[in-house]
């Protein structure tokens, strides 16, 4: 009887503690994918959000608290992207290894020069990020910066596998810089292309490929497009025509389609993160797919 009860309890709770491997809690899919690239089979990666989820609006769900409890390392974006849920999850989980300030808490934006720092800090401006734009995954060179820091953090926290992490990092970094060179070559014709964005979430992508953002469909970051604002965008496009309108996979493209019906503009749905489209299966195919979709949209 007692063994049956024990079996039921264990089956219900799962086997988090039983795993000997190094547990990584990644807040968004790009860091989950990067941690997997660098950690290989020595780590067990849990990604807290799905690629079709707005990373600004995540709830402190029970499943997240349970995973944060057993994590050895939390990999977050930082720059207040996760401010609405991660502090609460970490506090409730009570895992002192991964509290902010501990070695087990890693923020990617700490290793990347941030763009898009707001000139006016006021909530009347919508969802502004005081420290700068946190969507750094738009530029693969940022992934390289974060990868270097994350590899060192892995080695620091799991010293038994230092050699393993170093060789995986060196292998990844070599393939990554080769891939960046290839993408930059492929995307060269995109330089100077005028684009419209639905949400101001492509700052780093634009900086990387030299795209020119002429308008945003959201009147203020995080606010739904309104008809009056869309009319203004139409007027802007008459003066400054753009090739395409960029929409992240997690957003509805209704407003973009509305615009496309009235102008000769292509709606380009971008994966935004790993898993955002069927083709974006890992970090490499994520950028590959992004570049291909942009080239198709500009054609």
């Amino acid at each position, binding site marked *: 009887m007692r063994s049956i009860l024990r079996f039921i309890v264990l089956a*219900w*709770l*799962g086997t*988090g*503690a039983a795993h000997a491997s190094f547990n990584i809690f990644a807040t968004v899919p790009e860091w989950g994918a990067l941690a997997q690239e660098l950690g290989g089979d020595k780590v067990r990666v849990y990604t807290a*959000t*799905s690629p*079709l*989820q*707005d990373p600004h*609006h995540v*709830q*402190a*769900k*029970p*499943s997240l*608290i*349970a995973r944060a*409890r*057993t994590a050895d390392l939390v990999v977050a974006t930082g720059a207040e992207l996760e401010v*609405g849920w*991660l*502090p*609460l999850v970490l*506090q*409730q*989980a*009570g*895992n*002192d290894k991964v*509290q902010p300030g501990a070695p087990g808490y890693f*923020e990617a934006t*700490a*290793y*990347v*020069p941030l763009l898009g720092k707001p000139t006016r800090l006021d*909530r009347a401006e919508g*969802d502004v990020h005081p420290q700068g734009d946190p969507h750094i995954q738009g530029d*693969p*060179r940022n992934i*390289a*910066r974060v990868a*270097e*820091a994350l*590899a*060192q953090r892995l080695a620091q926290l799991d010293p038994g596998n230092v050699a393993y992490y*170093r060789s995986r990092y*060196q292998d990844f*970094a*070599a393939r*990554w*810089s080769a891939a*960046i*060179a290839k993408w*930059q070559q492929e995307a060269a014709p995109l330089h100077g292309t005028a684009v419209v964005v639905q949400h101001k979430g492509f700052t780093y992508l634009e900086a990387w490929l030299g795209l020119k953002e002429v308008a945003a469909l959201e009147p203020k970051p*995080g*606010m*739904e497009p309104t008809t009056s604002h869309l009319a203004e965008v139409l007027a802007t496009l008459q003066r400054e025509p753009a090739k395409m309108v960029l929409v992240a996979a*997690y957003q*509805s493209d209704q407003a973009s389609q509305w615009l496309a019906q009235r102008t000769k503009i292509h709606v380009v749905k971008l994966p935004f993160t790993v898993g955002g489209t069927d083709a974006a299966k890992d970090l490499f195919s994520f950028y590959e797919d992004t570049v291909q979709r942009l080239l198709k949209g500009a054609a």
Partner: protein
Amino acid sequence: MHKRMLVAGASALALLAGPPARAASDADLETIRTQIQALKQDYDARIRALEERLKAAEADAAQAKSQAAAIAAAPAAPAASAAPPTPASATRGLAAFNPAISAILNGQYANLSRDPREWRMAGFLQGGEVGPGRRGFSLGESELGFSANVDPKFSGNVIVSLTPEDTVSVEEAYGIFKGAPAGIVPKFGRFFSGLGYLNEQHAHVWDFTDAPLAYQAFLGGQYQQNGVQATWVAPTDRFLELGAEVGNGDSFPGTPRDKNGAGDAVLFARTGGDVGDSHSWQAGVSYLRTGSRSREDDVSDLLGADAALRFTGHSRLWNASFVWKWAPHGDPHYRNFKLQGEYLWRREEGDLDLASAGAASGSPYSSRQSGAYLQAIYQFMPLWRFGLRYDWLDPGDVEGAGAAVFLASSFHPRRATAMVDWTPSEFSRVRLQFGRAQLSPLFSDNELFVQYILSLGAHGAHIF
């Protein structure tokens, strides 16, 4: 001539200016000197601080530039560089240590068909904050909150509530100890108990303007704890949280009893998880044990004379709760659904005195009563939500002579409520709510509320 006039003028000025200057005592001069000295030191310190900040900023800028240049020159150097990457600079200055400050503005307009003073749930001894509040415009409870890490071992949080009657009350004021072993999170001070689901949340986060009837009948609105709490999350893939509290037991259904040791005890357990990408849920059970000494329920309106019932004894309360949320791919922005329900069961045993016109009579009293609510909220398009709630109470078994005063046969008080709200951003919400309450065979109330909730400053995360 001119010169003489000037001399004369100067000496006149000296004469005019002289006496007050001479009148200034050495002590005054000393004060002025020290003030000037202090000012000088203050400015020196500020200028030094500014110079240091400037230097640091220049160093940062140079570092960022060189990093950027290095990266631009060689995108993603394949080999790991010797120097470890350093995080970008954090905010400097004393202000960086200020606690996060938030203010919640919460106000309402209420249109109630019955006099709120007659509002009473038939068959229940009442206490705490019950009822729909006042008619017309009212300010609701505005809140001021401060929170910060105290040091590596403690964090603190205080929320002060400003009531429309211009009084101030401490809603929550607690510390959290971060150095406990084995994943235990100890909390101490005043806080909303972990009992049930809704209890821990502040009223401005609730999906309806007012508390469910079961919370009003059994907890006097919301159960506030003055004591210590420890929670522990099991180190497993499945969420399992256990919690225990002991406190002074001052809050309804208890009363202050002037005793050493614990006046109440709360135990709770929660579990939950996800089903696929789009569904998540949580369920919990909790238990409260507390006691009362002369807990008063003013029944003047029932007896038509100045009278009160006073309960002395102990109360035990059980709660079962669940919440289930749906959002396509976990993204609640466009559409989401939330179903939530709680069941409360309370047993009270002791003595009930009826104090009326200076005379008091006591008799043994016991009750077994229950209540529940079920509510559903649907966000059908961005910014707009629609919700329904149904409350009911069961007066159950009540024994005791004094109970005849408030018992109304076997009538079950109940209420149905509908609401629609508009949330232009996560910092603001405007709500329209209509409820129809049938609280006794003779008392039914139509309750209409228009409510606004504005949140200023730091915006903390919401619990699930």
